[in-house]
């Protein structure tokens, strides 16, 4: 039985749909990242899961029980979880009292509270600051205290909303390390939202993509990044080459897709006549100065239209009848003497593509 399950969860606000038909199923001990652009509804969904708000329609089941019960029952359920809000807000009290607050609300004895708080303060490295007023902490320290407040409760479910969004890179890294440690050490179920794909990949077992109030895809990070389920997901997970077209022919799991400016062969089993989007990750596109004899099914001639650097890599825009982006090392960019207007040969394998049905046109 999943620990948390949602059933056609909808949330409307001022007549606007924030969330539409969310169906989630989360196992105990799982770490789920909700990724999606700003305004997609991540916070709204987390607030519903944390039982801070009630949905317009739909149901949430926690540990098998529908949480739409009496306030008392909801409080009881809520006390099995802890939610770290996006904007870390210190209570105007000492660091110690901040971390102790949830424990005290649960009616724990003084000694129990002290042991737990000291242990957690040690973990976040703020033991020395226990008597400091939490309002005087830096952003990064405060976020750690906010996480400490939550994990001090040993919650069955830990919910985190954009845990590193408002932090400088150094604090963000420290906070993420802390979270990674928490996830390693505890058996808690964790649901976190982030707009940082890489963070989702690093921390989560599964990733749910939330776009415009819906979850078009949920799966392992490999599923999401290699085989995005829809054009929006593909766009959001950073597939830069998304080529729309129609399947012309199909043979032995390989289809030929007419994308207007050319024909692409891709591994897929979709039917002839189906409208599709073909995704090609830029790192899978190879550039060369002469036509290579390779097993790659797709080979085009094109001109470089734009060059930009991406850290140790170079991003190369090529016009080969249709626009394509390739990612090569700076070294090879130099070797190839790439510059705007340079003619290059572009190849990628049929197996390096991912075909998405664009269903509305089928």
């Amino acid at each position, binding site marked *: 039985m999943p620990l948390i399950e949602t059933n056609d969860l909808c949330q409307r606000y001022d007549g606007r749909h924030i969330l539409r038909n969310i169906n989630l199923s989360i196992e105990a001990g799982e770490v789920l990242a909700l990724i999606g652009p700003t305004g997609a509804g991540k916070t709204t969904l987390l607030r519903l899961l944390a039982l801070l708000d009630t949905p317009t329609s739909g149901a949430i089941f926690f540990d098998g029980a529908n949480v739409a019960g009496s306030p008392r029952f909801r409080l009881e359920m809520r006390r099995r979880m802890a939610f770290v809000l996006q904007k870390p807000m210190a209570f105007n009290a000492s660091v110690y009292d901040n971390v102790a607050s949830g424990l005290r609300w649960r*009616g724990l004895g003084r000694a129990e509270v002290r042991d737990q708080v000291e242990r957690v303060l040690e973990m976040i490295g703020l033991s020395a600051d226990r008597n400091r007023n939490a309002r005087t902490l830096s952003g990064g320290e405060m976020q750690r205290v906010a996480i400490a407040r939550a994990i001090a409760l040993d919650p069955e479910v830990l919910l985190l909303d954009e845990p590193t969004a408002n932090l400088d890179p150094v604090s963000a890294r420290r906070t993420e390390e802390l979270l990674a440690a928490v996830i390693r050490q505890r058996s808690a179920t964790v649901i976190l939202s982030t707009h940082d794909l890489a963070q989702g990949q690093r921390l989560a077992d599964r990733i749910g993509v939330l776009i415009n109030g819906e979850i078009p895809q949920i799966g392992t990070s490999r599923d999401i990044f290699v085989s995005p389920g829809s054009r929006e997901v593909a766009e959001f997970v950073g597939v830069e080459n998304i080529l729309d077209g129609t399947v012309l022919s199909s043979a032995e799991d390989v289809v030929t897709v007419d994308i207007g400016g050319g024909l692409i062969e891709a591994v897929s089993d979709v039917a002839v006549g189906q409208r599709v989007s073909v995704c090609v990750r830029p790192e899978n596109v190879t550039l060369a100065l002469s036509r290579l004899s390779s097993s790659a099914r797709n080979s085009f001639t094109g001109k470089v239209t734009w060059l930009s650097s991406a850290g140790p890599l170079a991003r190369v825009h090529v016009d080969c009848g249709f626009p394509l982006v390739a990612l090569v090392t700076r070294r090879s960019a130099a070797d190839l003497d790439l510059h705007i207007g340079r003619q290059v040969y572009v190849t990628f394998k049929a197996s390096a593509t991912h075909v998405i049905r664009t269903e509305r046109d089928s």
Partner: protein
Amino acid sequence: MALKHIRKGRTLLAGILLIIVLASTVLTGCGAETPVLEPKARLKLATTTSLYDTGLWGHLETLFEKKYGVELDILYAGTGKALELGRRGDVDVLAVHDLPSEERFIADGYGVKRVPFAYNYFIIVGPSADPAGIKGLSPEAAFIKVKETSGAFVSRGDDSGTHAKEKAIWKAAGLDYEMVRQSGQWYIEAGSGMGPTLMMASEKRAYTLTDIGTFLAYKGKLDLVPLVDKGETLLNVYAAIAVNPEKVKGVNYDMANNLIGFLTSTGIQKLIGDYGVKEYGTPLFSAYSDEVEQ
């Protein structure tokens, strides 16, 4: 955990209760000698302001309280207001001085019996220059003179016994009170007690009607002299009335009767008759004896 939670709630509740209990303790305490929430231990008296302003009650209060072991609460109110408090049951006993309204009070069943306990006289006082020239006139003639010359006159204007007496004098002078009241700025309605009214008359260099007791008690603070002190209408009798427990529920009738008995006892009658000699050189009241009313 749930149990602990409940226990916390109880602690909070207990805390609030404790505050309330403490509050009422302090209230009833306020010094242990004055308990508040025991109705039986208190007697509420509404007294005419002229008796109060002379300081007579301040004198009698301690004697009475000592004798009966009761707290005497004295409310300062004109006769009219005092009678109203009696009708509402907010006081147990009255000390007032307006015969007609006292009789009505008893006829309506609110009072049991009217017991006179002191008397003195009203006087008309005014600035020593006496601009209206009323010195030595009868009260009625003096009032007419003041009105004709538009000399300023301060009226109690508070439905008190003194106010009732003033109205009676206007009537005896053949004037309609309502007409007098509205005849110009010379007629000032103070709407307060005897002492304050005297203070106001002195400030405004005006005439006023006062009982002699309050006037003597205030004489040192005033720029006023007695101008008219003779005339039958000027007799001023103070009477005590216990509120009728059969008509008004909850009043402390027994203690009210104790007070009336106390006031008419020989010792206190003598004390009333002597009151003021030491401070003002002359008594402020005469002890009441039956022949006064005849």
